[in-house]
């Protein structure tokens, strides 16, 4: 039976088929799907019956929220072997970056060096997938790229149009999450061992009793220089974007009745109109109270502000070039920056970022400037829309202890709702940074299950193993080189290359998977084809070879509305990436080709094969996506 039929069969069908995860009869805790008053005549059967609107399914890991953080959490946990359900309350994946909101999936786009320090791991794999599948750079197609990325994972069940609304507890632990699936009128009780709230607002975590806060900390609490003197309730707002296209002829525009006129006279000079046809991020409204309760009021305001600004552009006479422009797309769903921040065993704060604090439990990094949008946003039009309090020379670390709840032992977070101050959030809220947190907690979730441990126990007893796994899976952790004792390349006697243009083949074994902190950690060939050979003194048994190739992490690859293509942004597949590569092994003195990959699409290249006994392997690269040389950063071997 095809696994995607799972939700079509219903509980009875699955029970018959003997499938895991198990679905039980309607829970006594099910309350939303009670339909005892229905008067339904089913003409197909000729019977009167009641619809079944209760389902209960158990998984290993329940991930709430299908944005960048949630997708990475789900994929990481699933690839490590957990049965995962990914619950998303919208019809599409992607959160703020989805076609519903269209925010650029930014990361460490530019440090003070002028260069990016791009995120790798699952989020890079997603962005590369998009470069192959969506060269037209369409946001609706991007939704489907994400859908494909999730659906191809056999261990993930995806539930769209489904919102987690309540945690059902077993003591201090979450046992199930009550969900409502809008399109099927169905209540789901999703059981799990580990729960990861990547939903941004964190409703489920809040109902689980996990402590959270909203608003801005005062300076004193965390010794933050950029915080207000005294704490207050302000939270950064949500934005509503739009796009316009040139119709080639004059197009009139009349604002709708609910438009709010743009207050040009009082608008701060930094409310700029650069590239306004691709949306204006400062059309934004925040709150100093309960921002979640205010969302629908704010949405209406934002729609009014958006049309007011567009009316100003079209009809004020200040933008004559807008005469032929017409709105092509307008958002109806504001993209949120801030609401609840849950409290973990550590609260990440400003000085951790600005002093590049080293955490022994670092699992992710950030580097977007501290970009604090101003209180009130459009409602304080006289203020600058944002203040970049600081930019960074290098990336900063994010500790694992800020990614799980201090109160609920089987609850983790990734994204904007993690344990951090308002000022730290002003930097770390960027989606690719959130995605790194997602991969970290997803990986940790499976470790929790394997070891029957809580996230806190992972932090205290197994953090080295978690970090090593993340590094192996191509996450970069600043100041933390890999040192995996299972990696047999560590025991190799010689690593050498056919030619060397820069770097050194021996650097492929030094634990660093990118050039960083002014140091080279790569090998680059003179030309192509080129090969690298790893040789051992004694025979070794191998069944896996893993390679990290260059994708130029100093140049961004996220999709942008302007399709920017310069030294900082790339709108195609990185030319540096390996395209055609083969693995050979020397067995009893004879070289054998183990596998050839003709159309590689990832930075982390994996060869999995039946175990062989060998004394040397050779990696041969025949082609990149355009670069006449090849650059590699790491080779690993496992038995």
């Amino acid at each position: 039976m095809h696994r995607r039929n799972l939700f079509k069969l219903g509980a009875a069908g699955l029970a018959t088929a003997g499938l895991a995860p198990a679905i039980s009869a309607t829970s006594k805790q099910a309350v939303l799907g009670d339909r005892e008053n229905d008067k339904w005549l089913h003409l197909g059967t000729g019977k009167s019956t009641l619809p079944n609107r209760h389902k209960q399914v158990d998984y290993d890991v329940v991930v709430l929220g299908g944005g960048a953080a949630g997708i990475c959490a789900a994929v990481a946990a699933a690839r490590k072997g957990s049965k995962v359900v990914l619950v998303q309350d919208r019809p599409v994946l992607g959160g703020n970056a989805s076609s519903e909101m269209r925010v650029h999936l930014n990361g460490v786009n530019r440090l003070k060096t002028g260069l990016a320090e791009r995120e790798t791991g699952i989020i890079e794999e997603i962005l590369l997938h998009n470069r192959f599948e969506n060269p037209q750079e369409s946001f609706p197609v991007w939704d489907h790229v994400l859908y494909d990325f999730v659906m191809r994972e056999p261990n993930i069940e995806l539930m769209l149009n489904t919102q987690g609304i309540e945690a059902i507890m077993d003591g201090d632990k979450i046992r199930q999450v009550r969900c409502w699936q809008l399109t099927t009128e169905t209540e789901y009780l999703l059981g799990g061992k580990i729960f990861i709230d990547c939903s941004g607002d964190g409703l489920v975590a809040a109902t689980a009793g996990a402590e959270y806060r909203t608003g801005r900390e005062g300076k004193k609490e965390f010794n933050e220089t950029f915080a207000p003197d005294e704490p207050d309730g302000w939270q950064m707002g949500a934005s509503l974007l739009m796009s316009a296209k040139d119709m080639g002829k004059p197009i009139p525009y009349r604002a709708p009745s609910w438009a709010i006129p743009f207050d040009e006279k009082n608008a701060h000079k930094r409310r700029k109109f650069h590239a306004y046809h691709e949306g204006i991020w400062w059309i934004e409204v925040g709150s100093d109270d309960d921002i979640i309760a205010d969302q629908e009021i704010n949405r209406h305001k934002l729609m009014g502000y958006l049309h007011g600004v567009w009316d100003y552009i079209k009809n004020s006479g200040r933008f004559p070039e807008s005469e032929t422009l017409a709105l092509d797309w307008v958002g109806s769903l504001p993209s949120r920056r801030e609401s609840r921040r849950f409290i973990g065993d550590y609260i990440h704060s400003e000085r951790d970022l600005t002093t590049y604090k080293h955490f022994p439990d670092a699992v992710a990094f950030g580097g977007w400037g501290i970009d604090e949008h101003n209180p009130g946003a459009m409602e304080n039009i006289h203020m600058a829309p944002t203040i970049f309090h600081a930019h960074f020379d290098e990336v900063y670390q994010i500790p694992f202890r800020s990614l799980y709840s201090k109160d609920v032992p089987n609850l983790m977070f990734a994204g904007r709702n993690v344990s951090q101050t308002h000022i730290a959030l002003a930097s770390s809220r960027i989606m690719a940074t959130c995605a790194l947190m997602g991969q970290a907690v997803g990986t940790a979730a499976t470790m929790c299950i394997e070891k029957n441990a809580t996230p806190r126990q992972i932090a205290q007893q197994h953090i080295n193993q978690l970090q090593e796994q993340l590094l192996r899976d191509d996450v970069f952790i600043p100041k933390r080189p890999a040192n995996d004792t299972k990696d047999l390349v560590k025991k190799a006697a010689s690593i050498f290359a056919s030619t060397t243009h820069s770097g050194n083949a021996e650097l492929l074994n030094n634990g660093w998977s990118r050039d960083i902190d002014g140091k080279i950690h790569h090998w680059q060939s003179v030309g192509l084809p080129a090969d690298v050979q790893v040789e051992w003194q004694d025979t070794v048994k191998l069944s896996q070879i893993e390679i990290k190739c260059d994708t130029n992490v100093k140049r961004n690859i996220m999709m942008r509305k302007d399709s920017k293509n310069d030294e900082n942004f790339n709108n195609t597949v990185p030319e540096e990436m390996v395209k055609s590569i083969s693995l050979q092994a020397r067995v009893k003195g004879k070289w054998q080709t183990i596998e050839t990959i003709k159309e590689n699409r990832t930075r982390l290249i994996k060869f999995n094969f039946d175990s062989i006994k060998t004394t040397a392997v050779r990696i041969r690269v025949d082609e990149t996506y355009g670069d006449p040389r090849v650059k590699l950063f790491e080779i690993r071997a496992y038995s």
Partner: protein
Amino acid sequence: MLLQSNACFTKVIRVLILVTLVVSVSSQANFLARLNSQASLVKHDISKTIKVEFSHKASVDDDLVKAKLHEYQIDDVNFYYMDVKSVFCGENICKVDKVRLHWDQFGHYHELELGTGIKLEKGNALDFELEDYIKLDQILANKNSTLSSLEKFELVTTGSTESAGIDGFSGATTYIKNEDYIKGAIWTCYTLWHYVNGPVSQIIRNMSAESYSVNELTQMSTGSWIEQHYALEQLSAKQSYDAKTIEKVLSLVSNANLELSQAIISYVKAAPKRVLSSTIIEILSSENSHIVGLALNLVKDKSRQDPLIFNAEFYQELVKVAASFKHYPYVHQTLSILQQSNLQNSSIQARLLTMLESDNFMIARAVYWHLLEFSELNSNKMMQSFYQFNQDRL
């Protein structure tokens, strides 16, 4: 407005411009005064003029460009200039000016001169500002510019607000660094960069070499990096492979860094057959790790292209030298060369057999596998003994 005087000839001197980037306001004012002075194009005593034809990446229909190249001296050092059109414009809507480009004796960009009243133009019919000239000077001096790989079909007239209909580049496929072009003037940058760093540069290198004797070039090979590189290139071009010159070049081997090693190998690569083998063996006998690997690659490439270029005697010498290699990858490369040559005589095999006793087990193992596959020595006592002793590690 800068560069405004209609009566004046304007000269942009690279060194001066660079100085203005860092000097005080008063010095900059001095510089501007010079720009606006009545000076004409600098007159030089031309020692030689040649007609040249060369390809240019921006040339319409890929026609060869015909021009005159002039040689002159400053303090007995050769310099060159050529008058060119400022821009090949893809859609014939660019303003074309006469530009005088200067090179040094090594074919490196030296400076750019403009005639009276000539002002280069960028988008929207705007004249270049001072900072644009400064940037252009830096662009032309950068040999590693991303303009080098840009093809002219990637340059388009976009008509967008940003490029103001004069010139631009298609954002769809082009990758070019901001530092490599001036907004609105990419055709100009592209045209001039390829004049400066295209085939003319090599023509000048060859032309200036005519004034140097082999002896002078040989002496130059011990000079600065630029001189060394130039000397090795021109010695090669002059086919100077006499014993004295080779000895001088080989004297550079022991202390050569990677870049110089590459230049030496390029020199050796063009050597006539009669000295090629012995020169390579000399290099392989050195202990400079930079150059040994390059030399082995050269042998591999050469023998792949021409299997008869090296004789049996060479391979015997190669194996003799390889027997003392401590670095396993060099032995690996040597064996790979032998396999490619298909030459396995008894003398070579005898030498290889001794390597079964190498202190480096990987060397011994590689030799063992080589001999097992490419010789008839499987019943040889040393081979059998090696197998018996190491069978678990093979």
